[in-house]
Structures are given as C-alpha cells and as structure tokens.
C-alpha cells in the first residue's frame, strides 16, 4: 500500500456515507469523474484547492480529509522504529497501523517521545554530574574526608603498639572528619535536592514550546487580543519549567510584536488580496520578510487559508520553529532534510529564495526561505544568522519542476540522493 493511501480512501468513505454519486461530486467541484475516481483509489495526489473544494462539498473539515495528522504520526512511528533497529518492525505496514489502530499508534508515538525526552534528561543529568562545579566540590570534600577517616581508623586498628598520645590525636581527627563528613554529605544532598526541584520536566524546553504551539494550531488568540507574553507563558499549565517558560516568553514576545505590526483583522484580508505573497505583504506593512513568514504561519486555518508550514533554524541547523504542513512532516528531533531551501538560504544571507519542493508522498509546496540576522548587527563581532522557510501547499496541477525532499535522512526512502548523510531505516523492514 502506498504511503498516502489514506486520503483518497477517506474521501470515498465520506462520499459513500452521504450517498453522493461519484459523478455528482466530481461535477460539483469541477473535476472529471475519472479524475475523482483516481483520487479515491489513491492514484492521484490531492491538496490545495481540490482538497478544499471536496471538503466543502462533503461538509467536513479539510483536516479530516487531509493526511497531515496521519503523516505526522507515521513519521514519528518511523522514527521510533529507527531508534531501536534491533527490534524489527513491519515498516511497510505503518500506514495500516495508523489507519486501523489510531489509539495504539498515538500511544507508541507518545511513548517514543517520552523515551527520547528521558534520554535527553539522562544526558543532561550526566552532563551535570560531570560538569557541575558545586557538585564536584562537594564530592571532592566527601571523598577527602572519607579518605582521612579510613586511613586514620586503619592506623588505630592496625597498630597495636600505638602510644596513647597518638591514639588521642587520631581519635580526635576521626571525630573532626566525621563531623565534616556529616556536614558535606548534608550539603551535597541539599544541592542534589535543589537541582531536582529546579527541573523535573522530561522534555527539553524547546520541545515543550513546540508542543504548546502545536496544541494551539500556532494561532495564539490570547496574544492576538493584546495579552501579555510573559503572563501568557506563566499561566500555561503545560509549561512546567523555568527554562521552558523563559523560552516560551521569548517566542510569545516575537508573536505579539508581529501581531501588533500586522493586526489579524487587517492582515488576513490583505493576505488574500495579495494571494499570500510574502514580499508584497512585507512592502504593504513595512515589516521584514521573516516577520511576514511568521505571521502567515499564524493565520487560523480555514477553508480560505491554504495549508501553511513554517520551519526555522539557527546557523548550526538546529530547528527553532516547526509547524508541519500536511504532506511534509517536520522532525521533532535532529536535523531536517539537507535539501530544504531553509539550509540553502544560509549560504546567501539576506537573499530570499523561492523553490518548489515535493515531499515523499508527492505533496508539493512553494518554499520561500531567507537567512536573516537573529539580533542587532555590530561592528565588533560577526552577525549570527537564523534561517526561516515558509511552506505553502501547492496544487498538483501546476506542472512546475520540483525539488524532491524528505523529512530527515533516517526516515526518508528516497534513493540516489546526493545529500544523504546516513542510511534510511525504511528499507530494513
């Protein structure tokens, strides 16, 4: 079964449930019955206007028909399979698993995420044990004290002819060192307790922020209405650590600034009027292109707003923002596909680039990317760049040449890719 088999099957299922003839539905949305037949049998990709028209005709939300949610789950399941290659799984049946047992699929992906988060927590604790100067100092003190007690006690026990003066001195030394040991042990325990109180979260701060955005569809109503970013971050129950709260507040300040510069009630009509052209919108609102990218990705999803994704990274390629569009699941962990224009933009900072890209399932996107300084420019140090890429779902029928891309190498099945940095796990099943 091809990976994208679900969308067409779902369209067929909803049409039959409503008792609509294939020819009637095709006529209603302005396509031929044979083309709809191909779509329903998963032999043609679908997205953009056709998907929206079908969802309107079937009176259901486009996301119900689209494969986005399932693709994200499939991608995470592939990642889960890749993380433990010693346990073989039926990689070619992941789609079936997602379709037939969505609860189990969600459970596995949730556990996989938790496992990765726990691994990162262990790594963090290991770093802390290795590099924490306070802990190192406490440990040194404890071991030095134990060493003095051990040597002194061994002398007392193992030296029968020890004079009374030496005995008294060594007893006194043991008493001194044992008190010191009690104090240093208590101090170390207090330090460890303090560390554990500071950070009990199993997810990294960035993952917590990603989840917070994903959970709200990347549209933050509270901030659109003028809410305070810090207060908003503080009252979010899912943000459970100081580090995540600080990071979230920084993201929310950017969101608020964008919302203030491009108020929703003005920006959304302008976006439609300008056909979601970021350059035109940047000129209209007098804001940087990257701000328009962010603002477009924050538009509430609706029948008239195309499926828009957004991803950004720092100069090291680490992902800073991820909003997956349907048909291109962006990874939660590690780096993305080296062929994304996101990375190409870093080689020419300040120069916007536009490419058509095609995901593994055939979904096509207009990808617009730009590398921009992440802070104020200074004379005394080199600029630090971030790159940002907007993804707008494209109709299948444009016929424009597209760059084939993936999500990330481990879970990308494309062969003969010059950019591949590690083998895929998808051929091992």
């Amino acid at each position, binding site marked *: 079964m091809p990976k994208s088999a679900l969308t067409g099957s779902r369209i067929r299922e909803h049409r039959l449930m409503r008792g609509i003839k294939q020819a009637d539905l095709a006529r209603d949305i302005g396509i031929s019955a044979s083309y709809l037949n191909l779509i329903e049998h998963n032999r043609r990709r679908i997205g953009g206007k056709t998907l929206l028209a079908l969802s309107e005709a079937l009176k259901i939300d486009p996301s119900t028909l689209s494969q986005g949610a399932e693709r994200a789950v499939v991608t995470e399941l592939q990642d889960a399979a890749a993380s433990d290659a010693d346990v073989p799984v039926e990689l070619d049946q992941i789609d079936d698993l997602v379709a037939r047992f969505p609860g189990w699929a969600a459970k596995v992906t949730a556990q996989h995420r938790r496992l990765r988060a726990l691994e990162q927590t262990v790594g963090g604790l290991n770093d802390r044990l290795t590099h924490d100067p306070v802990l190192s100092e406490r440990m*040194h003190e404890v071991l030095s004290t134990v*060493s003095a007690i051990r*040597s002194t006690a061994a002398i007392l026990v193992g030296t029968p002819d020890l004079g009374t003066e030496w005995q008294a001195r060594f007893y006194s030394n043991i008493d001194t060192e044992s008190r010191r040991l009690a104090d240093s042990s208590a101090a170390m325990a207090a330090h460890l307790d303090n560390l554990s109180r500071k950070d009990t979260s199993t997810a990294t701060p960035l993952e917590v922020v990603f989840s917070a955005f994903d959970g709200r569809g990347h549209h933050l109503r509270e901030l659109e209405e003028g809410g305070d970013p810090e207060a908003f971050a503080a009252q979010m129950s899912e943000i459970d650590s100081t580090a995540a709260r600080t990071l979230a507040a920084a993201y929310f300040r950017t969101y608020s600034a964008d919302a203030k510069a491009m108020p929703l009630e003005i920006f959304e009509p302008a976006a439609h009027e300008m056909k979601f052209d970021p350059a035109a919108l940047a000129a209209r609102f007098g804001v940087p292109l990257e701000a328009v990218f962010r603002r477009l990705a924050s538009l509430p999803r609706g029948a008239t707003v195309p499926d828009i994704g957004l991803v950004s990274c720092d100069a090291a390629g680490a992902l800073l923002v991820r909003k997956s569009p349907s048909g291109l699941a962006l990874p939660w962990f590690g780096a993305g596909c080296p062929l994304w224009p996101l990375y190409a933009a870093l080689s020419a900072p300040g120069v916007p680039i536009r490419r058509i890209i095609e995901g593994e399932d055939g979904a096509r996107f207009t990808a617009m990317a730009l590398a921009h300084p992440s802070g104020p420019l200074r004379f005394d140090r080199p600029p630090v760049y971030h790159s940002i890429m907007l993804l707008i779902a494209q109709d299948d029928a444009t016929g424009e040449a597209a760059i084939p891309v993936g999500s990330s190498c481990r879970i990308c099945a494309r062969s003969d890719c010059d950019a591949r940095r590690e083998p895929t796990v998808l051929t091992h099943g």
Partner: protein
Amino acid sequence: MSKTVLLVEDEPNIIEAISFLLERDGWTVRIHSQGDDAVDAVLRVAPDVLVLDVMLPGRSGFDILRDLRSNAATKGLPILMLTARGQTKDRELAESYGVSHFMTKPFSNDEMLGKVRDLYTASADKP
C-alpha cells in the same frame, strides 16, 4: 640515610595519617601544602618519591606534574598522584603528563604504602 618522600597535600588529617604511616615505614617525610610553589619545593627537597594531591590551593596537581616532567631535574622522579576525582579523563590526563601512578581516594593504607615502595624500587633499579 633514609629515603625521603615529599607529600604535597592540603588536608591536615590526611597529611597526619600518611606521614605517620610513612615514617613508621622508615621514610623521612617532608610536607608541603600549597600548589603555587610546589615545583620549587620539589626542587629544593629533591625527594626520592613525590606524593602529589590533585586539588591544591593555588595550582592544580596536573599543572605541577606537567612542569615537573618538563624539567630535566625531575623528569624521572617517581610521582604518586592522589585524587578524589577518579574520572577516566582525569586519569588519562595524568597519564598523558607522565604520572608514575594514579590513586583514587579513599585508598587503603597498605595500597598507598606498597605503591610508594614499588615506585622507589623501580626508580632505584633504573640505570
């Protein structure tokens, strides 16, 4: 003339215990408790064996070790390093600087005494 051990250590009760053990074993024990002028102390005392702590006030035992190994007068001096930091990277660092033996606290008295004797014997046997 008895053999001399220079003990560079800043913990008073460890100094007392080690000194007692070495003196009863027939060694002349000289003490130094600072890191910053420890190399001068070694050159001045010219011990047969050096027992060197890692964490010292003023300068780390690793830096002292490195300086001693780059000095012709102390290049072959038997050096027993004592540390509460038993991590592999510390041991590897000490070995890369040319330590004779690396011992982690807490150690047994017999182990410490035996190693001091071994280092001296191996050094005395060298042509």
